[in-house]
């Protein structure tokens, strides 16, 4: 070790120098950032009223074409909050300033964040012109870009993208279901026919997601297909689970029979609990016997879900809960707790038409 001082000292000096340089840079960056923030805040304060004058029709997009770049940030911040003609005005402004064209070019940029931000910007403009480019990005090598493109497609409102979005769930470079789901929800009710089709003939993840979304939309015409999916013992568990939840959200009493069968007879506790919860949402008194039977399930989740469902069916369900609560056995504590937690007064009426 005696030969080391020279190289060691040299290394130590180098590292120390690096530390000093880093700390000095940090100090400089701190000062520069504070100045930059103040400058940007002043510019924003100056430019924001101009955007409002543009929206009021007192200014033209061409007049703002050469304004500082921070204007784009102001416009992009406002854009998702606006609809209709106001949105169109801001979109025209972005086109006039060349922002949209630049974003279009950036879709093939090398850095993933540039591609992603460009996709989000194009989506925010709500234009369907770039749908094919965004669909291509669903297969991008970067997962972040794929997610951004998915969100952007949702913002464009172009229902033609629904099959591509559903297909993106199962491609080699798949997009997570939560992101696809949010995009499909953004597309709104025009996407419902495509979702009904996917429920019947899609892949398992597409069927499950379609079922969930149809439920969230409260799509009554999908009741029969959802009931069939729930009743199909050979269907993937995720599809049946999603179908049960969807039927509850739709609130269709036509599904009471199928949901009651699953509550009592299914093997999977999660599915039984989901079916019981759905019965509670529907609130059909015909489901009381099945829910009462579910109260003797070995699984606590099933018992709790059945108890909660019974509590939401007045007066029949609550009467049954009182009876169960007075007895001994595993159902009693769940029954008493559900009654205690239930809001006073009557539960919701039947949500759907018989």
């Amino acid at each position: 070790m005696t030969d080391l001082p020279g190289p060691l000292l040299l290394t130590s000096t180098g590292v120390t120098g690096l530390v000093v340089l880093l700390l000095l840079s940090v100090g400089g960056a701190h000062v520069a950032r504070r100045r930059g923030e103040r400058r940007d805040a002043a510019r924003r304060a100056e430019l924001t009223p101009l955007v409002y004058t543009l929206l009021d029709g007192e200014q033209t997009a061409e007049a703002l074409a050469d304004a500082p770049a921070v204007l784009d940030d102001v416009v992009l911040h406002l854009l998702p909050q606006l609809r209709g003609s106001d949105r169109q005005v801001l979109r025209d402004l972005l086109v006039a300033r060349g922002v949209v064209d630049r974003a279009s070019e950036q879709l093939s940029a090398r850095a993933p964040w540039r591609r992603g931000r460009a996709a989000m910007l194009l989506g925010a403009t709500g234009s369907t012109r770039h749908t094919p480019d965004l669909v291509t990005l669903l297969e991008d090598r970067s997962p972040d870009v794929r997610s951004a493109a998915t969100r952007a497609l949702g913002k464009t409102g172009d229902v033609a993208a629904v099959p591509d979005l559903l297909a993106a769930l199962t491609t080699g470079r798949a997009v997570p279901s939560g992101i696809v789901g949010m995009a499909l929800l953004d597309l709104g009710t025009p996407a419902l026919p495509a979702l009904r089709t996917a429920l019947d003939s899609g892949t398992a993840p597409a069927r499950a997601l379609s079922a969930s979304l149809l439920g969230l939309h409260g799509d009554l015409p999908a009741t029969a297909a959802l009931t069939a999916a729930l009743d199909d013992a050979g269907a993937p568990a995720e599809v049946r689970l999603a179908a049960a939840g969807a039927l509850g959200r739709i609130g269709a009493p036509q599904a009471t029979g199928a949901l009651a069968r699953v509550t009592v007879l299914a093997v999977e506790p999660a599915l039984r609990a989901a079916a019981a919860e759905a019965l509670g949402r529907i609130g059909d008194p015909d489901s009381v016997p099945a829910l009462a039977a579910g109260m003797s399930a070995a699984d606590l989740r099933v018992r709790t879900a059945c108890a909660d469902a019974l509590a939401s069916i007045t007066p029949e369900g609550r009467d049954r809960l009182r009876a169960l609560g007075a007895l001994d056995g595993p159902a009693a504590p769940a029954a008493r707790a559900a009654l205690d937690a239930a809001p006073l007064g009557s539960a919701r009426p039947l949500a759907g038409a018989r």
Partner: protein
Amino acid sequence: MRETLGDALLLAGWVLTAHVALFHLVTLLLVLAGARRVWRNRNWRGVEGHDETFASPLTPAVSILVPAHDEEAGILDTLSAALGQKYPALEVVLVDDGSTDRTFALVAERYALREVTPRPTADLPVDGEILSVHRATTGDPLLVIRKTSVGRRSDALNAALNHARHPLVCMVDADSLLETEALLQVSRPFVEDPDNVVAAGGVIRAANGALTDRGTMLEPRLSRRWVVRVQVLEYLRSFLLGRTGWADAQALLIISGAFGLFRRDVVLEVGGMDPLSLAEDAELVVTIQEHLRRNRRPHRVVFVPQTVCWTEVPESWQVLGRQRTRWSHGLGQLLWKHRRMIGNPRYGPIGVLALPFFLLFELLGPVIELIGLAAVVTSLVLGLVEPAVAGAVLVLAIALGILLSATAIAVEELTYHRYGRGRDLLGLMGAAVVEHLWFRWAHSWYRLRGLVAALTRRTPVWTAMPRVGFSGAPASAERLVPAGS
């Protein structure tokens, strides 16, 4: 004889040098990987889709679990922050774990609690007796469970898990303040990838010295106490960069008990919190990953560096010592319990990277440092090593340590820059130097005590940290703007 002793001392010196060099190299790689990720995230700022997550009906509901034992100093602030989360569907389950102070009385008064029939949703074993369950009548989604304490936070958490209703559970310490969008940010991976993400953690920062108002962080400020400042820096290195780096390597071992979000079904599947472990948070994360890997189920444990939870850190050496000894004891328990995973490729990066790192550097580090240091001092006394060599090695080790801290400060300033005041930044830079004068050595000593406690199988003791509460601030209108908004 002298020759043999000389060889042994030389070997010990080399082991110490190699250990220090390897530790700094690995840590530097982690810090750089973390810095790269944080820098990349910066480019996506503003387009992460948080508003969409908030508005989406697909966003899963969250139960925030808060175990509390003698937390009167800050419990109302913690609950305000938890209940004030910008999140579409949540409930807070507070467990008053045998408090002897006014914790329950304060909560009962503020939220007009009403006793209700217990409504368990799971049946994890709980050693303490559940005394009563209460619900807020103020319209807040708050459930309060009173139980007798058995001196273990994990027991309180299991009681909370038994009453949580939502598919995600967020564990929060009772001395912590969540930023308004913290839950929204940390839940984003679950919303986007619900099939695979099983756990997510965020950054923990020290709240000591900061200005807060009713659970809202108004202005992060650096405490004047050096013992706190050094911990602020340590948390920056560990959370902002270290854990981001580990998460990128798919080897995240620890999600802090102060703030972590988990899929409830998976937590129940592994039997909840280990009642005897002192490393509850890390223990849970490792157990989940071991279970899922053994069953070949795809999963992801993620870290969200932009998410912040502010917490109280020890302000005295005595309390810091107890905390760090407990952590080290817990780490020893954890590594022993999961010893089959260490170096085992079957468990992926956790087995071959994270666990060996924690064994070699975190658990055994103090032993190697102690033996190495003793060897260097003896060598110096016996004249076997020139003082210049020993001095040069020491300077290099310290310089490398400061370089790591400086990198963390640089990344913080260039990305999140939570500390707006220049003097706080200078304080952090000072802490980077001061740390090596005493904190590092004291920390090694505490870790060594924890290791001894683990080796001697000492009965785990969970000691509550004395709380001072959060700093108040005049609630003038212009101040009521949360930090980070």
